[in-house]
Each structure stands twice: as structure tokens, then as C-alpha cells.
């Protein structure tokens, strides 16, 4: 890496985001210098075309894999193409592209292997429902007790990881609801993870992938998968 600047890829998983993806890609292109990759997770709307029209590189998954499978496809692409750092942001415009340098900074200075953007550090416009706040507190507790990481925003989908984690996640990344599980994986690698404050907007378009109906399944699945990962071997 000496001499050459690190190669940075912004990965944007997108499922049925035709209304927001074009604007997001354009604002990334205009306001940041990074390469970007849209991973279209088997959308049936014009997500892929809209992203391509905005001049993004697009990977089209032939079927819907779920958010983890889509993000992992981005990691595989980054690994194969020799990127040093991957930033992952949501395709629905909830994250502020101008916060990307803040999320990158601790990795670029070698202070951290993973940086997670937190909507709860510093001032925030974000307000969640009561079940969501409860879920977040539960995951904070679970992560802290089992890994020691002090986390404020355990389900944040805005993060950056270095090459070592990109390679590991290319082989081991949960198919659905991956963010909480990722803390166990990072713990296994003794990765240094830090949070930085980021802005978070209410969704402009579309629905959150987490409906109230799925909340209980989410909690149970993530807790189980988290605890199993704690005792799993990674070959």
C-alpha cells in the first residue's frame, strides 16, 4: 500500500429501490471520489436500470438473497478486484454520503479495522419506535456481554471495513440480519471496531425491511445465530 492511495469501494445493497437509488448514486458521484457498486438483490422493479443510468457499476443477483447475501456479493467483488477498504451504505437514502469520510478516517489512519456509523452518538434526528429501541438495547447488552465491544448502534448498516475483514466476510457472512452477528465475527478476528457519529434520516421512499411482524423472528434468529457463532469453528 506504500505510496499508492488505498482503493475504496462503496457498496450499496438495493432491493426495490428504484425511486431512491438514482439520486443516491448521483450524489455519491458528485460529492465523493470513491468507486461505487450497487448490488441489486433480485429486484423486480427498475432498480438495476436506474442505477446503471446514473452510471453506477451494478451486480444483478438472479434471485433475492437477503441483505447479508447481497452485501457479501459486494465483499466478494471487492476482494476479487483488490479493494483495500469497503464502505457499506443503505440504498434507500437513510445515510448521509457526506459522512463517508468520517467513517473511513479511523481505517485510513490505521486506528481501526472496522468503523461503524452510529445514529445515537452525537446529535441525531433519528427517532425509533418502542420495540425498536428495546431491540437495540437488548443487542447492545448482548454484544457487550459476549464480546466486550461497547456499541451504541448495534444494527447500523453504515460501516467501513478493511481488507482483512473484507476477505473474512467474503467467506463468512450471515444471509439475513448480519450486523449484530458481525460483532462476533470481528471479535473472533480480534478486530478493532470503533463507532463514529453519523446522521440518519427517516426513509425517504419504500419500507424498512424490518416490519413489526418480523420483529420477534428477528430477535430470536439474531440471538441464536449470535450465540452459535460464539461457539462455531471457522475453517
Amino acid at each position, binding site marked *: 500500500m506504500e505510496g499508492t492511495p488505498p482503493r475504496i469501494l462503496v457498496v450499496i445493497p438495493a432491493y426495490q429501490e428504484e425511486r431512491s437509488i438514482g439520486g443516491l448514486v448521483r450524489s455519491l458521484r458528485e460529492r465523493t471520489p470513491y468507486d461505487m457498486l450497487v448490488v441489486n438483490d433480485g429486484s423486480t422493479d427498475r432498480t438495476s436500470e436506474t442505477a446503471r443510468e446514473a452510471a453506477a457499476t451494478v*451486480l444483478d443477483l438472479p*434471485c433475492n*438473497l437477503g441483505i447479508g447475501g447481497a452485501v*457479501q456479493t459486494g465483499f466478494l467483488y471487492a476482494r476479487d478486484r483488490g479493494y483495500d477498504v469497503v464502505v457499506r451504505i443503505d440504498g434507500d437514502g437513510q445515510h448521509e454520503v457526506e459522512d463517508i469520510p468520517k467513517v473511513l478516517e479511523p481505517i485510513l489512519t490505521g486506528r481501526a479495522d472496522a468503523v461503524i456509523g452510529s445514529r445515537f452518538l452525537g446529535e441525531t434526528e433519528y427517532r425509533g419506535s418502542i420495540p425498536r429501541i428495546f431491540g437495540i438495547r437488548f443487542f447492545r447488552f448482548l454484544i457487550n456481554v459476549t464480546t466486550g465491544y461497547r456499541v451504541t448502534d448495534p444494527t447500523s448498516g453504515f460501516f467501513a471495513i478493511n481488507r482483512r475483514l473484507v476477505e473474512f466476510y467474503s467467506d463468512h457472512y450471515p*444471509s439475513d440480519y448480519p450486523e449484530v452477528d458481525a460483532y462476533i465475527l470481528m471479535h473472533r478476528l480480534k478486530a478493532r471496531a470503533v463507532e463514529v457519529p453519523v446522521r440518519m434520516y427517516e426513509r425517504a421512499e419504500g419500507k424498512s425491511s424490518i416490519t413489526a411482524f418480523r420483529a420477534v423472528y428477528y430477535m430470536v434468529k439474531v440471538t441464536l445465530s449470535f450465540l452459535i457463532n460464539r461457539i462455531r469453528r471457522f475453517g
Partner: protein
Amino acid sequence: MNRVTLFSICASAGFLLYILEMVRRRKLREEYSILWLAGSVVILVLSLKQDWLVGIAHAVGIVYPPSFLFLVGILFILLILIHFSIAISKLHQMNKKMAQEIALMKEAKRRQAVTD
């Protein structure tokens, strides 16, 4: 020979033949037939050899021997279902890898077309 014995023999023998025929016609893969075959053979043998059934049932403390047949049947069904869950998980993983590979290959091809 009482009626329940006759029924049990006919049912397990018929089942065994059906599974063998499915394997022969390649409608059922060998690895998925093993548990079905083993289950039907065990039930068939215990139906034919009643004294074995009575002996084993009493040895494990079951008063009414035919209920040991139910137990064997249920245990095999459980094993088969677990086997299916494992097979589905494996297929899920393979399917995910293939979908990812296809997406990456399509992109590489598109890139190639642009540079050509």
C-alpha cells in the same frame, strides 16, 4: 397371525418396494433413500418376528408391544426430517454461492464487452 400383524407386514413390505422402485427409476437419490429403507426394514422385521418385538418392548419397559413399532416409526421420521433440514441448509448455501457467482460473472462479461 392376527390382523394387525398382517397389516403391518403388508404396509412395511409395500413401502419398502415402493422406495426401491423410486430409487430404481432414479426418482429418489440413493442417499435420501437410506433412512426410508432402514426404517421400513426395521418395521418389517419386527412385524415378522413378533417375539423379537415383544422382547425388545419389554426390555425397554413398553407394556403394549405394537406401540414400540410406533416409536420406531416416529424416530425414523424425525431422523429423516433432520436429514432434510441439513440437506436444505446445504442447498441454501450452494444456491447463494451460485447466485453470487452468476452476478459477478455477468458484471465481468459486461466489463469485457465494454473494453472490447
